[in-house]
């Protein structure tokens, strides 16, 4: 299981196969397409088709029941003057800018500790990963309960003489509350970093030790560069994930579903949902408007990812020299 071949694929599979009679190559090509057909169909029906359709919809006014009415750039013009759009965008960026660095540093720190092969390592790994199997409404309720103004978390802070804030009540503290809550789910990041650390050849450390390098120098010059592809991958996927925060914000927003106190948890996808399906706040079933929001989101994510790929050349270290 662990000995996976993850290197770039050889151009044509090194299939040393016995030639069978009756044009086996053609038969295999046909089978190949046939087997891949489910994905191809799904790609066309549930990805490309919808993308193109939503591009069209974004230029219309459309509430599903009537036919779409062409509106040109009107949706986009309205979006750029829409206060909730900017609120949701800045809330989302807040999470990206604050949460991802914290998660990255803490995850690498814990992964480094786990990589020491201390007694009970398996147990620690399991426990730290455990919350990651929970993702739904129940987990949000649990943290809503723990982070109540007089809840368990603030009681614990009080033991250290700290007066805990009104986490999901005070608009200033809702997003920090989500960061605190989010720390419970860093287990999968930690496991991925741990796998990355395990992949670093021991000889490099031995060589460095002989050269006189010590603790921090080894971390700085061996561990971090060799871990950088993993860090890069994690940051890219975390940003995409952060842009999609929904369930947590939806539940914590309460019955209005408009981002809770001071719209401080109005995240991009929550706002998009409200425009498309919402029953409160700005009227729902504005499919044209929502489709335009979705396309803007797509472009933002694409731009950030491309920017990161460009940035990666400066800091991501690829051992074999092949970049992906």
């Amino acid at each position, binding site marked *: 299981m662990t000995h996976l071949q993850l290197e770039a694929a050889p151009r044509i599979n090194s299939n040393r196969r016995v030639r069978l009679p009756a044009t086996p190559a053609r038969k295999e090509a046909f089978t190949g397409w046939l087997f*891949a057909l489910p994905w191809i169909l799904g790609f066309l029906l549930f990805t490309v088709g919808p993308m193109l359709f939503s591009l069209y919809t974004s230029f219309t006014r459309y509430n599903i029941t009537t036919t779409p009415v062409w509106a040109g750039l009107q949706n986009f013009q309205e979006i750029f003057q829409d206060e909730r759009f900017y609120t949701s965008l800045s809330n989302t960026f807040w999470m990206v800018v604050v949460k991802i660095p914290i998660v990255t540093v803490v995850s690498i720190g814990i992964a480094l500790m786990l990589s020491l092969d201390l007694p009970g390592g398996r147990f*620690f790994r399991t426990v730290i990963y455990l919350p990651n199997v929970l993702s739904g409404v129940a987990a949000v309720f649990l943290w809503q309960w723990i982070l109540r103004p007089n809840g368990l978390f603030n009681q614990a802070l009080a033991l250290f003489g700290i007066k805990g804030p009104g986490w999901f009540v005070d608009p200033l503290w809702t997003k920090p509350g989500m960061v605190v809550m989010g720390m419970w789910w860093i287990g999968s990041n930690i496991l991925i970093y741990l796998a990355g650390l395990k992949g670093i050849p021991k000889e490099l450390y031995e060589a460095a030790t002989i050269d006189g390098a010590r603790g921090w120098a080894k971390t700085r010059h061996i561990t971090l560069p060799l871990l950088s592809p993993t860090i890069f991958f994690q940051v890219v996927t975390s940003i995409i994930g952060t842009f999609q925060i929904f369930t947590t914000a939806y539940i914590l927003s309460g019955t209005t579903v408009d981002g809770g106190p001071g719209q401080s948890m109005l995240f991009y996808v929550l706002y998009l949902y409200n425009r498309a399906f919402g029953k409160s706040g700005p009227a729902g079933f504005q499919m044209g408007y929502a489709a335009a929001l979705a396309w803007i989101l797509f472009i933002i994510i694409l731009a950030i990812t491309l920017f990161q790929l460009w940035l990666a050349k400066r800091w991501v270290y690829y051992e074999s020299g092949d970049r992906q």
Partner: protein
Amino acid sequence: MTAITLPTERRSKIQATVRRAGRVLAWLVLVGIAILWLVPFIWMLSTSLKDPTDLMNKSWIPTRLAWENFTYAFSYGMWEQWTMNTVIITLVSVIGTVLSSTLVAYAFARLRWRGRDWLFSLVLATMMLPDVVTMIPRFIIFAKIPAFGFQGSRNWINTFLPLTIPAFTGSSFYIFLLRQFIRSIPMELSEAAKIDGASELRIWWSIIMPLAKPAVAAVAIFTFQGAWQDFMGPLIYLQSERLYTLQIGLRQFEHAAGGAPAWNWLMAASLVVIIPVLIIFVLFQNYFIEGVQIGGSIKG
């Protein structure tokens, strides 16, 4: 890692002590983290067994074990129906995802066909595409596809179809994961079967599937976990109460007591909803952990 070339024995002794102290410290930190990580679960269990008068006090052990919280949780709404719905949707999603993803992954890993590498780069590209981007048009499309009265609906909205049928087209991420795994299975095994006249379908089903069991299991349990706890999908597509899943039911339950949520009932209900996921985790934790690590190694 023995410090052979260090100048004096004394220096190496100090270093060894520092390293030992570091290891002890790290171990203590890990113990602390493990406790912190478990506390929410224990608090959930503790709260779920408290009666209302007990709810606001800080004790970990309820003065009286209020088991009736669980009977209350079960008696509210249509829990049996919702559980059935969730089981059906989850089961169909798991079967659909596993069958289609392994089949497609097999085609990408083992068969040679024109356009394969090009299509595979498309698979990788769609992995990065957020679902939300296609959420609106998918809803519109499902609202146009006739369901012929299935689950009492004229179109796919308010049926299980949008939540299950797409699973049969495979998931890009799992296709990638399985392809990597299938490539590591020795070629000789399927070659031998081929010489014996086995069809590709047969090789996929009776050779590749069993040998790829760890990866297939990881895909199955991740799909289970995702489908069981999916909130946004059912929220968008299911409107009738009789079709709700547990996640939507749980959300309804929040305000069942009217006004502020009754936390002891809510924790009892939440616990019931997460227990299947926890059981699966305890039984198959190695598959989870290895699956995550394979998933993370896409760094190229």
